[in-house]
C-alpha cells in the first residue's frame, strides 16, 4: 500500500494541485486570484501528462542520447497547452483591466452588488 502510493506520488500531487486550483476558482473573491487559480489547475493537468510519459531511467527524447526514451508526444501536447494557456491568461487579464475601469473594483461580491443596484 505504502509502496504503491510512493510510486504514484506525482499523481497524488496532480490531484492536490487540481484541488487547490478549484478552491481558488470558487473561493477567492479577487478576480486576479481566480485567474491564478485557473493556471494552477492547468499545471496540474500538465503534470499528469508529463508523468504519464515518464519512464524510470529513460533518456529525454533527444535522439543523440542512448535509449530508451520517454514518449515525446505528451511533451508536444503540453508545450502547445502552455502557450495556449498564456494566451488565455492574457485575454482574461485584459478583461479584468476593463472590468476594473468599469466598476472600480476587482472584488467579485462588490461587482455583483453594483450590477444588482443598477
Amino acid at each position, binding site marked *: 500500500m505504502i509502496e504503491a502510493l510512493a510510486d504514484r506520488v506525482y499523481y497524488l500531487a496532480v490531484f492536490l494541485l487540481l484541488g487547490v486550483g478549484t478552491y481558488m476558482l470558487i473561493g477567492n473573491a479577487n478576480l486576479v486570484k481566480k485567474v491564478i487559480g485557473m493556471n494552477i489547475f492547468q499545471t496540474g493537468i500538465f503534470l499528469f501528462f508529463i508523468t504519464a510519459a515518464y519512464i524510470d531511467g529513460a533518456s529525454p527524447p533527444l535522439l543523440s542520447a542512448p535509449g530508451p526514451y520517454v514518449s515525446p508526444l505528451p511533451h508536444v501536447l503540453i508545450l502547445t497547452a502552455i502557450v495556449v494557456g*498564456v494566451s488565455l491568461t492574457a*485575454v482574461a487579464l485584459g478583461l479584468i483591466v476593463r472590468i476594473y475601469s468599469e466598476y472600480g473594483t476587482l472584488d467579485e461580491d462588490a461587482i455583483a452588488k453594483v450590477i444588482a443596484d443598477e
Partner: protein
Amino acid sequence: MTTPLELGLLVFILTCAVATALLRDVLGSIIAFSAYSLAIAVAWVFLRAPDVGLTEAAVGAGVMTVLFLLTIAKTVRPSSDRTLERVDLPALAVSVALVAVLATTLFALPAAGAADSAVATDDVTAYYLDNAYEETQVKNAVTAVLAAYRGFDTLGEAVVVYAAGVGLLVVLDREVFA
C-alpha cells in the same frame, strides 16, 4: 521510484500553490505563483521533459508573472491588514470532494515511471522515436513531432496566439500594443 529530492520538490510545489491560494495580498500571491512556476519547471527536468521545462521557465515564470504584475499596476492591489485570507468553507468542501473522487482512481493508474504503461508501449510513441530522425533529420524528437508530424497543430496554436492578441486589443479598446 521517487527520490527524496523529487519528494521535496513536490512538497515545495504544493506549499507554493497553497500559499498562492491563501495569501491575502495579491502581489504576494503573484510572487508565490512565480516561485511555483519555477519549481514546476525543475520538476519537468526531473521527468525528462527539458523542452517543457524551458518553455515553462520562460513563459510560465517569466511572461505570466509580467502579465500579472502589469494587471496589478493598472488596477488595484487591495490593502490588507491580515496576512492570510479567511478560508471559504463551501469552496473547500467542493475541492476536497473533487480530490476525494480523483483519489479513488489513484491505484488504477500505472506507477509513475513504469516501462509497461500504455503511453510508453504505444505504437505512436514507438513510431516517432524510430522514424523521427530518418524522416525529419531532427535529433530532438519533440521538435520533430511539434514542427513536422503535428505541424498543423502548431499552426493552430499560432492562430490561437494571434486571436488572443487581437482579442486583447479589442477588449482594451486600443489599436496597438504600447
